């Protein structure tokens, strides 16, 4: 059943103002409807503008194939999988699916559990490279912070990991502070991991900017 995790803020790029939003755990029928009726048409329309995958990546329409509804329903039944959403202005502004059954590759906690972010996406109308004049900024950062919070709550000390889409690699490495571990030849994506210390730095207090 959907649960409120916490109240947050998103920056409305159009007005320059922060707006109240919330993070929820276990996405529900409203989020499914948002994805099917609002996300997917935008993504598919955008993808249709391109004639190959590389061009689709450039336009950040790569995830139009993601079956969020199916994956979220699977997660309800599966041990070790969780879904989260950022909601604002009555709609789903970001989605995340995590897996709690993976292990860290980095010292000093190699082999210990972590929260692996299977899928993370902001709504297509919030994407700088998908639409002209994207609306909300911050959903991705909030979801990364949510994954760290879950990791701490599970006793994993903040450890998280993910495979980044190409256009996001520099943010994960240079701004979020992940370690760029390696290129995963099977997934054809770079694998990033955040240690407990890096996670603590990510959610640092505002007194230590």
């Amino acid at each position, binding site marked *: 059943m959907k649960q409120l995790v916490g*109240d947050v*803020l998103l920056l409305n790029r159009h007005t320059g103002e922060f707006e109240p939003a919330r993070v929820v755990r276990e996405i529900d029928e409203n989020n499914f409807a948002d994805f099917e009726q609002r996300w997917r048409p935008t993504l598919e329309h955008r993808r249709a503008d391109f004639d190959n995958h590389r061009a689709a990546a450039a336009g950040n329409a790569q995830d139009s194939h*993601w079956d969020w509804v199916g994956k979220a329903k699977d997660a309800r039944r599966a041990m070790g999988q969780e879904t989260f959403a950022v909601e604002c202005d009555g709609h789903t502004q970001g989605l995340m699916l995590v897996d709690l059954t993976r292990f860290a590759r980095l010292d000093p906690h190699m082999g210990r559990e972590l929260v692996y972010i299977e*899928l993370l996406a902001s709504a297509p109308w919030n994407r700088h490279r998908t639409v002209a004049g994207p609306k909300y*900024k911050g959903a991705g950062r909030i979801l990364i912070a949510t994954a760290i919070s879950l990791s701490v709550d599970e006793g994993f000390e903040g450890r998280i990991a993910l495979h980044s*889409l190409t*256009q996001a690699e520099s943010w*994960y490495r240079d701004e979020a502070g992940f370690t760029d571990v390696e290129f995963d030849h099977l997934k054809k994506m770079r694998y990033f991991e955040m240690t407990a210390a890096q996670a603590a730095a990510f959610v640092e*207090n*505002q007194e230590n900017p």
Partner: protein
Amino acid sequence: MKLLISKDWLRRKIAADRDIDIEAGRPLSTAGPEPDVAVIAEQKVVQLRVALGVLVRQLRQRDRLSIAELALRAQVSEDEVRRVEHDPHYTARPRLIFQLSHYFNVSLANLSQIAGATHAVNRSLYNEAVRYAARSDDVSTLTEGERRDLDAFVAMLNERGKA
């Protein structure tokens, strides 16, 4: 679960972030059915899990433990141990692999690969595991030859684990 961030933190960080998209997950260019690859991967996983079953059974026999005794000492369920030993289509939970790795002092990374729990498998590790499984007989006690093979395989796993 409590969010470890404040609204002040969000105001400051979001305002400072570069305006780029930060999606994560498998991209479209690698999604979709790849039947040849999937079939080969599934066959390899089954072969690796046969090796895992042999390894766990022989380690247990080496230490003269029943399935119930191993389950108790490694803090896992008897059913899981039984299925890992005998069912190559059984997907072992990460916790089981972790506990067995810890109990038998075998490299977790390599044991995870043999369990089919990783996306990629080292080619030479795969070859060694398949060869090791092929040499074993399903009998209740270890022969001297099997004991030598077991020791060599565990040593190889742990040597690779250090690399």
